[in-house]
């Protein structure tokens, strides 16, 4: 099974994690148009490439961000949300 590294708990098999989907910035609901909002809700960057994703380490209840290439399934780095700089 694939390995993933939780910034707090270390490297673990994928079975310890829950995939949280792409990390996306929410547009300002007050400012955004209906169709732009619908696009935010439903559309995804489907094409393969390096993406920021939410992952959750279940045993410790830790959410973190993984930068993963969805084509090669290689993880470039992982860090806690908002601590990208320190990573």
């Amino acid at each position, binding site marked *: *099974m694939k390995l993933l590294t939780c910034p*707090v*708990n270390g490297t*673990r*098999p994928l*079975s*310890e994690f829950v995939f949280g989907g792409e990390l996306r910035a929410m547009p300002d609901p007050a400012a955004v148009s209906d169709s732009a909002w619908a696009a935010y809700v439903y559309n995804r960057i489907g094409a393969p490439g390096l993406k920021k994703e939410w992952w959750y*380490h*279940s*045993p*410790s209840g*830790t959410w973190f961000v993984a930068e993963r290439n969805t084509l090669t399934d290689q993880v470039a780095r992982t860090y806690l949300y908002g601590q990208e700089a320190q990573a």
Partner: protein
Amino acid sequence: MTFIQTSPVSHAQHHAHPVMGSLNGMEIALEFDSPQIQQAYAALAGIAEFSAFTRFGIKGAGAAEWLQAKGISLPSAANSWLMQDSTLVLRLGNSEYLLEDQFIAGHASALAQDSAPVGAKLYPVARSDAALVLSGQHALAILAEACALDIAAELAQPQRLLMTQVAGISVTVLKQTLNGESVYRLWCDGTYGAYLWHELSTMAQEFGGGPVGLSFYFK
């Protein structure tokens, strides 16, 4: 009115008809068999329940400071533990702590009886863990089936603890020397206790081991 608490695991133990007794107000399995057999089980592959110990949980950015103010010394690194007096102090991740008195009342009981903690970024964590002990020469083999991690290597570093999955559920694991024997301590959510006990004791029996009562360790 006084009352007796039930252990989260007891349901899975009834069929083995253990001698029950009360510790810290919880009914707990003291003996499953004759001392000789328990001894043999413990040496091969023993599984015991420690759920009756008193625990105190707290988390939040302010937890460390608050505990230290209460005179509790804390593990310096995340996911490690230490023993203060007769109390096991677990640091779960960065800012959550679990204190567990061993056999006799200690810091956990004291804090539990205290008035509810007050302070910034300070959140008490109610606990009702199922606490198990895995012992014997085959303990590692059992963990090798139930857990994907290289337990021996991960816990080679003394005072380290792991939050991982055992038999498919979230478990906190550490290695400890108890009465001169090195054993594995496991904590899981109480509602999974019966399940985990069943699976681990089944595996233990396959190695000629079996359930061991709390009194075996109460020395």
